[in-house]
Structure formats: C-alpha cells, structure tokens
C-alpha cells in the first residue's frame, strides 16, 4: 500500500510517501500502527481531528475500511483557492 503525506504532515514525518505493509482493517488502525513506529509519526498524528485522509484519491473517514485500497494519503485541511 502506498502511503502519502502532504504539507506539514509530510514535513513532520520527513518523507512524501512510502510503501507500507499492513493488515490494518481501517484507516484508524493504520494510523495506530504508524504512531507506534517512531516519534515523528506520533508527532504528525498527535491530533487526527486536525487531519484529513483520502483513499485512492477520494476523501474518506478515519473509520473507513482499507480492504482493496492501494493509496492512502494524509494531509491537513485544504487551503486552496
């Protein structure tokens, strides 16, 4: 599974994307796995209410299932326009 990070999430974790091997059932489970890895992940995911997630490039909720998903992206609320 390809996991992508944008804006300050990318800066805190230190990389724009990585391949993650995981059996996490939901986005929240995947976040728990990442947070357990290293402090920089814990720092990025300290407050998930300040984050958004996209599954295969569509906005999703943190309790969404990951079955069949190839690309997960984490980022702060958008500020375009």
């Amino acid at each position: 599974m390809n996991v992508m990070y944008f804006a300050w999430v990318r800066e805190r974790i230190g990389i724009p994307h990585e391949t993650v091997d995981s059996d996490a059932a939901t986005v929240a489970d995947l976040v728990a796995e990442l947070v357990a890895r290293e402090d920089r992940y814990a720092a990025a995911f300290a407050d998930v209410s300040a984050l958004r997630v996209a599954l295969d490039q569509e906005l999703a909720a943190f309790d969404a299932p990951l079955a069949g998903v190839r690309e997960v992206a984490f980022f702060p609320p958008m500020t375009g326009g």
Partner: protein
Amino acid sequence: MTVRVQPEPFDAGAELNGFAQGRSDVGAIVSFTGVVRDVDGGLREMQIEHYPGMTEAAIAGIVAQACERWSLADALVIHRHGPLAVGAPIMMVATAAAHRVAAFEAADFLMDYLKSRAPFWKKEVTVNGAEWVAAKDADEDALNRW
C-alpha cells in the same frame, strides 16, 4: 469545460476573452481571480503544494456538479502550484450562463468548494519564517450554503 493545474502563470484577461467565445446562448460571464496578497508587508513568497492526480479529479468533479446544477454553458478552472510571488495570480474560475444569477452562484459555489475540497495547501514565506496557512472555519461553514 476546462480544468488546468499548472505551475506556470496565466493571463487572466486572455483566459476570460477565450472563454465561452462564439456561443450565442451566453448572456452572463462571471470570473474570479485569486491573487497572492501581501498581508502585513512581510510576505516574500507563497508556496502551493498539491496532490497530483487527486487535484484534477476533485476539481473536475466539482465543476461537473456546478455545470449541471446551474445549467452552465461553460466553466473554467485554472489553479497554480509551486512558488508564487506577491501580486501573482493563484487561480481563476469562470462561469458562463444564460442569466446572471446562475453565473454568479456557480462561480461562488466553485470557489467555496475549491477552497475546502481540492487538495491544495498554502505556505506563506514571510520575513519571519515559513508557515502553513490554517484552514478557516468560515471556509468550511461556507459549504453549508449550497
């Protein structure tokens, strides 16, 4: 319907003139241009990050929704990414419809949705350092109008 996501500057006037040309069913054209604004005289540059692939798909989805809801004759969205100088155009939206109310509402809707639902992130580089622009509650609230 045109959607462009690009690092290059664009010429808003030329885009407006090229938009909805030669259609006799258009009575009203509304355009919005967003410009890098110097907040307190200390802005050096604006940087815009985006999510290639998702950006184009998200914008196309929002534009298709607007075209259907307001029976637009045409719609245009251009959004830049990368480093932008103070005073530079950031993005542009244009809508063409038979009547003014539809053209205004659709452009307003497109702006509200692009701001909070298209994957762009702004970072301001000032004389005091760089900072990611925080999303405003008002921008999220604006979506409830539609």
